[in-house]
């Protein structure tokens, strides 16, 4: 009996920590918009947005899992995330573009990592070329 209670408490505090982390990120975003538009958001509003975000995540997660399962996969992919964005055209467009950006960025990073070992073996050590005089 005690074990389930301890387990429940552990799960509860895990949840609370995640909520706090979400609140922190939401707060940062609110501050950025506030600076940009010269308005202020009071604490309750920030907390309310954080709460709504955290709750929506439950729906998002369950949907993503369902989409992956529907496609007979156990790994959620970007295709599933895009499906999540289907309800608004502008949202879908934005997410699709972001997906391409991310894919492009990752490709470039991979290419850099592959090039690096070759560069280090062909160039002599620490000869600083002064290009700006």
């Amino acid at each position, binding site marked *: 009996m005690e074990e389930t209670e301890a387990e429940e408490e552990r799960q509860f505090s895990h949840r609370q920590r995640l909520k706090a982390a979400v609140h922190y990120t939401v707060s940062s*975003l*609110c501050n*950025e918009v506030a600076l940009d538009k010269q308005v202020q958001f009071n604490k309750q509003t920030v907390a309310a947005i954080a709460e709504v975000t*955290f709750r*929506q995540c439950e729906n998002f997660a369950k949907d993503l899992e369902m989409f992956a399962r529907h496609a007979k996969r156990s*790994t959620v992919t970007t295709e*599933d995330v895009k499906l999540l964005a289907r309800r608004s055209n502008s949202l879908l467009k934005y997410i699709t573009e*972001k997906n391409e950006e991310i894919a492009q960025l990752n490709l470039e990073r991979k290419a850099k990592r592959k090039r690096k070992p070759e560069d280090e073996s062909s160039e002599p050590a620490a000869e600083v070329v002064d290009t700006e005089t």
Partner: protein
Amino acid sequence: MEEMSGFPKELVSRILHLHFRDCKTKVSGDALQLMAEFLKIFVVAAVRGVQQAQAEDLDTVDVDQLEKVLPQLLLDF
């Protein structure tokens, strides 16, 4: 938008796994990054909606504005 803070991948991963029903469900790295963007845009939409719903010249935005914006926000997402 690139300079804006965002959701760390680790946080997104933990939140999603909290609600998955099957312990075998995983999330690809790209999907995590995309979800981080998705969540960021959700928050920004809420924040901007609240700020725009503010008709008067108030310096502070409160929960009333959020109540006006919430139905449409949830429909869009």
